[in-house]
């Protein structure tokens, strides 16, 4: 008999080793999330998937599912928190949705829309983040980076290239590329890399494909993210969860 935990009053079965978020998504239950991607080991940095479990808040993507756990997710309190976290990300970077190629396909925008984010709610930081247009096939627009590390994880764990990494700390934490020049053109990134297809926002953009699908007909223009997230429910992963190169064990 499979074990279960309670999610907003209903039983959710789980397999050993699953996190609360993974089990919920497998069972067709949506918990808002951002830096989680079904093909990668969760790391829990955005905190948007925070739930209350047995009265204590925790990121559901990294919280191990346990029998008898009482999880509250669809509550005013948790959605208020998520709204604030999404607002923080909007305030931290430079996000101009109307002129962004990713508009309509952007997870941050879709989440904000779903959670009812109408304004950033905080003073914008307006950071100075120069664009890297050095590569013939890609544009890196760091203004939109939410530091979810999906490209970092994909490049290390799937592509085995480690094209992307993070440097700095605190508010100065930023994405860097694996080249002495600091330019993407000097890395071995390729069009077929997993890393270039996982960006949830508009940082890693393929050149010469701008606005191929008109705004209004894009992914999240059709249905809200909460309805579509389940289409992405856990699927087989090729990611190892660790990078041999970065660990120095390759």
């Amino acid at each position, binding site marked *: 008999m499979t074990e279960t935990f309670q999610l907003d009053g209903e039983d959710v079965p789980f397999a050993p080793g699953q996190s609360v978020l993974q089990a919920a998504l497998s069972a067709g239950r949506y918990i808002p999330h951002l830096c989680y991607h079904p093909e990668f080991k969760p790391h829990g940095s955005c905190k948007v998937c925070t739930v209350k479990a047995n009265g204590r808040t925790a990121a559901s993507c990294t919280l191990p599912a346990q029998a008898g756990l009482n999880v509250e997710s669809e509550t005013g309190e948790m959605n208020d928190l998520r709204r604030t976290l999404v607002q923080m990300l909007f305030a931290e970077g430079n996000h101009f949705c109307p002129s962004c190629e990713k508009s309509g396909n952007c997870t941050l925008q879709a989440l904000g829309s779903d959670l009812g984010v109408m304004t950033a709610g905080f003073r914008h930081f307006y950071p100075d983040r120069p664009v890297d247009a050095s590569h013939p096939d890609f544009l890196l627009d760091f203004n939109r980076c939410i530091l979810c590390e999906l490209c970092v994880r994909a490049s290390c764990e799937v592509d085995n290239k480690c094209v992307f990494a993070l440097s700095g700390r*605190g508010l100065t934490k930023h994405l860097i590329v694996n080249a002495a020049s600091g330019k993407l053109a000097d890395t071995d990134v390729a069009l077929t890399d997993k890393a270039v297809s996982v960006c949830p926002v508009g940082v890693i953009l393929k050149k010469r494909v701008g606005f191929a699908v008109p705004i209004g007909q894009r992914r999240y223009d059709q249905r809200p993210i909460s309805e579509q997230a389940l289409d992405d429910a856990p699927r087989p992963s090729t990611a190892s969860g660790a990078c041999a190169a*970065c660990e120095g064990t390759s």
Partner: protein
Amino acid sequence: MTHELQSILARHQFAPTQLLQVLREVQEHYSWIAPEALDYVADGLGLPRARVEGVAGFYSFLHSDAPCRYRLLFSDNITDRMLGNQELIAYLCNKLWVERGHISEDGLVSVDTTSCTGLCDQGPALLVNGWAIPRLTHERLDQITELILGKTPVEQWPRELFVIENNIHRADILLDNPMEPGDALRGVISRGGGLEAAANARSWREGIPAAEQGQLAILDEIKKSNLRGRGGAGFTTGLKWEACRNASGDHAKEQRYVVCNADEGEPGTFKDRVLLTTQADLLFEGMTVCAYAIGATRGFLYLRGEYRYLLEPLNETLARRRAARLLGRDILEHGGFDFDIEIHLGAGAYVCGEESALIESLEGKRGIPRNRPPYPVTHGYLQQPTTVNNVETFCAAALIAAGGDEWYRSVGTAKSAGSKVLSVSGDCARPGIYEYPFGVTVRQVLEDCGAENTLAVQISGPSGVCIAADEFDRRIAFEDLATAGAFMVFDASRDMFEVARNFAHFFAHESCGFCTPCRVGTAMLSTTMDKIANGHGTLYDLAEIEKLDRVLNQSAHCGLGHTACNPTLDTLKRFRPTYERRLKSQDFEPAFDLDGALAAARRMTGRDDAGAHLSTEEA
């Protein structure tokens, strides 16, 4: 250049786990980490360059911006500010003709600030290329200026500049212990000889092999002593050791580790510095006792970069202990009791005081706290069972090993056994180290250190609590005021808003940036405090601070974020008028200064008449 780099890499056996240590030595040798050095290190360790650059970019004492012969970092804790460090910084910048935070045009010198360097009892302090100089005065800065302009290598600077005092004003069972190196270990090993009644009783009942009797006996004793962690969290030490010893499964087959957390970064705390200076043998003995109890053969001391000057003396103590058979193979001729300790230096990152971030840092990575569970006791250093304890905790464990748990429990209160070493600084006649049995009142400490007209005391640093005069009868103990040791005193002349603002900047500077709420929230808190300081604050901002606190408490990844708003909320609760008198109005007030924004247009048009200004005042 490559020759020196090669020898640094060789000294660290080209091990990727040594990355931080390698970078730190490169920094020390060249006073920066050049792009070519990053390439060379990445190559030598077989790591992606971006990973090496990411680590170099995380720690604030590693610089890959530009070469600079003398890097001066003023400690910027509130206690340094109270001793006038801001004026001293301006004075030195003026003398050296440099802009604060920028390297001089000729690459000679830079002057900037860093978080508390643990010299609050003898501040203001600074670090020059990582070496601590306390008790700064204009005269000392004049001397430093001459040394810099004369391009005298730091190694040749007068020794008296670098003399650090211990300032022990009250010693108790720990600081006054009469122990000789090896006393605690001999006590522990003798427990395994079948003479110890408790061990015998257990082995008879449970069929425990003789070799384990001593280990279980000391574990039992540490548990019974009721020793709790001295780093702030107060976890029961015996339970931690036991969990580590019992950690089993596929991951436990390799190795267990003992790690001493000497990354004393909490502003206002410096007792570990004094323990490392005066009680190094006791500390290493405590670590060895732990190794014996949990079955570990390797240990690390993670020493904060600010205490760089302690590295050589500590290594000498380790060498002496090896020579005396108190470390190494077959310790005290006890067959199979092997243990050794190596020292890792940090490089300016408060968050590495969090035990899982410390372990990441030990592994040569960015100091990001891990997701827990699993905890270090089962999956610590290199995913092996690891016990991480504070310096003072290991010292106490050695005392217990020598003196027994009953004796130890007789000191302190019923719920808090033993003594606590306090780091007293701020407005008092005798700042320094005070050791008391647990249960001492704040009032007693204030009296002993010669504090007068005290307005408030910040207990356990910014992440602790701020208490006002009506709470001075509260006690230092786990059941009342738990503390890692910081005790900062503020008299009636101080403005507690400025204290809280200093702490808000501290948290923003030290946030690792991993999680959204802490990375963005701590920055928002410090800008909001600045806004209030600049006279643009409103009641709305006070409400915003409370909202940030809620978000950080609900969702931050680790304790740094959880506690970041505490100093602000504590002072807001106890000293609200100091906030309110700064508020521009009780109603909404835009932070954006519209007229100020037109200044550039006025300059460009060469106009400054009334018509070029917005009329902000009603006629």
